[in-house]
């Protein structure tokens, strides 16, 4: 089994490209690696979770080094990849702090980004032949 997995180890440059694709488009890395079913599930679920966060009036946090927690939230938000930039371009994610669902929206946006980072790590493992 380990020998079979080692046969599928990819060059590091290609692995970096796969990870970049996995970050930019949720599930993109798995689709590239031929894991269509998993890739499609991530491709639907993660952007949908991100959109739900926007719908619940969550905020896409700005990078503010003077406020470490806000900067960390911004780092997590950007983990979702292209959907983050689309939302920014459409002026979404301003957040409405007085909305009852504001904190839920933040949780959806942050966790969607963090889950996509886990998906990127999984794609990295697959590309390295570990899975």
């Amino acid at each position, binding site marked *: 089994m380990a020998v079979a997995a080692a046969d599928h180890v990819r060059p590091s440059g290609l692995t970096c490209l796969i990870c970049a694709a996995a970050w930019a488009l949720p599930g993109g890395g798995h689709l590239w690696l031929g894991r269509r079913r*998993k890739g499609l599930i*991530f491709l639907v*679920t*993660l952007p949908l979770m991100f959109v739900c966060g926007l719908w619940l009036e969550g905020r896409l946090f700005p990078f503010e080094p003077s406020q470490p927690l806000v900067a960390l939230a911004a780092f997590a938000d950007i983990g979702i990849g292209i959907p983050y930039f689309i939302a920014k371009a459409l002026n979404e994610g301003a957040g409405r702090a007085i909305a009852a669902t504001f904190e*839920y929206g933040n949780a959806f946006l942050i966790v969607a980004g963090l889950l996509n980072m*886990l998906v990127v790590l*999984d794609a990295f493992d697959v590309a390295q032949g570990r899975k």
Partner: protein
Amino acid sequence: MTTHLGAMTLFALFVSIVFATLMRDEPREQWQLGLRLFGGLVGGGILAGWLLYPLPL
């Protein structure tokens, strides 16, 4: 869906789907883990809510 319970259930659904897909390869095992995670998250949330209920806030 914008109630506390609705948002929590939706959140649990998304998290369960992603973790089950990540951690298992076979569809049957993914379903089993996903349902367990979903039940644990929703049940745990409701339980924590009731445990916090008597606290004065």
